[in-house]
């Protein structure tokens, strides 16, 4: 069976008359119907741009220069080649997105009701009364208590977390086949976060909605996803099931991420963090591994040649030279033992 969403060799470049550089390189992701897939990585690693590319919403200076993004519903469409109009049909119907910053998605001059019900008006056939009721139900489901009042309110009259939940309601109300959730719970406390994640789960069960969960929070990944891709500097560096990533992380970057969450929650003076920062695209290492400058295990080779995506075990790939070295060592040992 074809996956619902098939991102194949996606590359995104920055192009202006002054400069040109690569931002996102060789992203491959397959998401089946009903699957819950996570993308995790530090700030600036390219998570949001990857998701914006799916909906053809990249800022002007950014161009997809290779690869395709196929959506397999009744028919197969390459989302990259769709016109604005065709894309609008898909948005809100097949694919819905929860944006990282609610205020970018909410229009300050319209009421919540107007914005929440807009997708229903376009895609579904409901009476005014039915729509209103659906809106109220949805707001209640995302834990907004005074839903009648909030329907009439404007975005600035809501708290940060309420805005985020209104946006979630907007995305869920149209019961999409694919829900892209970019940091959907950053402004929410744990109780409501749990409620929202449950709600997404329910939707996934009842409508076979697949979820692409984008987050920097490994805890959210653990709670919700089946598979996860770890992104660094515009590339996927490790990909596998959630269990494998948490229990047998292979890539030095993933290991670093895991140790930094484990040190939080202890009231110590210094928190563990991976030394250095994610480079911005204009500073990506041109040759070799993009993580090399921050990697505690970097070897000469890491600065010279790009590591391949290496199958460390069944269904678990990691982009690091260490695995290749280890495999070669193993091979040498076995061949020596054999002779």
């Amino acid at each position, binding site marked *: 069976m074809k996956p619902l969403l098939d991102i194949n060799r996606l590359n995104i470049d920055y192009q202006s008359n002054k400069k040109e550089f690569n931002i996102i390189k060789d992203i491959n992701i397959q998401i089946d119907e009903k699957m819950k897939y996570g993308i995790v990585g530090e700030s600036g690693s390219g998570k949001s741009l990857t998701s914006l590319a799916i909906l053809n919403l990249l800022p002007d200076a950014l161009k997809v220069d290779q690869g395709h993004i196929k959506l397999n519903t009744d028919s197969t469409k390459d989302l990259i080649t769709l016109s604005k109009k065709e894309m609008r049909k898909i948005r809100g119907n097949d694919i819905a997105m929860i944006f990282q910053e609610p205020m970018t998605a909410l229009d300050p001059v319209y009421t919540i009701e107007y914005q929440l019900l807009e997708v229903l008006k376009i895609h579904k056939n409901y009476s005014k009364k039915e729509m209103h009721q659906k809106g109220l139900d949805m707001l209640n489901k995302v834990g907004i208590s005074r839903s009648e009042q909030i329907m009439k309110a404007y975005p600035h009259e809501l708290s940060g977390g309420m805005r985020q939940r209104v946006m979630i309601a907007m995305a869920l109300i149209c019961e999409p086949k694919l829900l892209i959730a970019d940091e959907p719970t950053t402004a929410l406390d744990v109780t*409501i976060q749990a409620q929202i994640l449950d709600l997404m789960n329910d939707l996934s069960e009842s409508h076979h909605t697949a979820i692409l969960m984008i987050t920097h929070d490994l805890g959210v990944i653990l709670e919700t996803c089946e598979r996860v891709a770890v992104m660094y500097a515009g590339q996927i560096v490790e990909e596998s099931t959630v269990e494998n990533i948490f229990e047998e992380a292979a890539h030095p970057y993933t290991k670093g991420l895991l140790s930094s969450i484990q040190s939080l*929650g202890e009231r110590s003076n210094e928190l563990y963090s991976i030394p250095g920062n994610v480079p911005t695209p204009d500073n990506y290492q041109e040759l070799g591994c993009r993580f090399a400058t921050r990697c505690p295990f970097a070897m000469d080779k890491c600065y010279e040649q790009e590591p391949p995506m290496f199958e460390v075990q069944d269904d678990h790939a990691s982009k690091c030279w260490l695995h290749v070295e280890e495999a070669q060592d193993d091979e040498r040992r076995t061949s020596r033992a054999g002779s």
Partner: protein
Amino acid sequence: MSEEQVVLEVKHLKKYFPIKGGILKRTQGHVKAVDDISFDVRENETFSLVGESGCGKSTTGRAILRLHEPTDGDVLFNGENLIDVSKSSFRHLRKDMQLIFQDPYSSLNPRMTVKKLLMEPLLTHKLATPKEAEEKTVEMVEKVGLSTEHLDRYPHEFSGGQRQRISIARALILRPKLVILDEAVSALDVSIQSQILNLLKQLQEEFQLTYIFISHDLNVVKHLSDRVGVMYLGQMMELAETEALYDNPLHPYTKALLSAIPSINPKEKENKERIILQGDVPDPSDPPSGCPFRLRCPMAHDRCAEEIPRYIEAERDHWVACHLYDE
């Protein structure tokens, strides 16, 4: 902390927002976003405010800085009442008090480059010459994990977390005395978050800064704070030193909140006991009688519907508003 100097006193602060309705747009009621809260913030400490979405944390921060005119109550900054001072002296005091907004997207002027965004406050408050301002800008940008090459870029050319760091840099560059950080690190991954938290601590020691840290992330709050206040429906439910609050929470609401902290250890995931709160957060324009938490409280009894619990010092330096502790 032995000698505790109070920098900020919040007394009976209230902020009600009118709800307009009907064809005539008459006021039909009020959202009691902040409803009579009092607390002190001590010099050089990190005081955190936690509580569910919509409980009034941001409104409290904004009302302290008069970005929302308080409906009632007083706010004293180093003994001076911010509510009565004249506009001009308030503006003067304001540079000592910075707010990092919850939504960096709407608080950064999209037409200014990062360099301009950071230099502007220094120049308007006449705290530096253009040359010094530029040096400070470079230094600050690097401290928040960005680089000088970013100085000529505009806010929309950054990722969400990068934008959040720009707002942090912009607030800290003024070396204020009091900084209100509203969900300032919530969009950041653990690694950069640790880096920023370490930076905040380091600046706090270096410049004797006082922080009011608003966050829903109880792990971060535990790590960073000296004292924590727990809000619910516009009111303060519990306030204590961090350790006392986390090790010995008194209020049923605090207990539920703490039990819900997601585990980062997959093995713990199954055997952790959670207190699931029943029901929704009540409507702040029509709060329940008695204790605001009673409709969701597993310990609620008759008295809770009848009397508003007093806010009392149940243990030394440990305040709580719950009938269970007020026999």
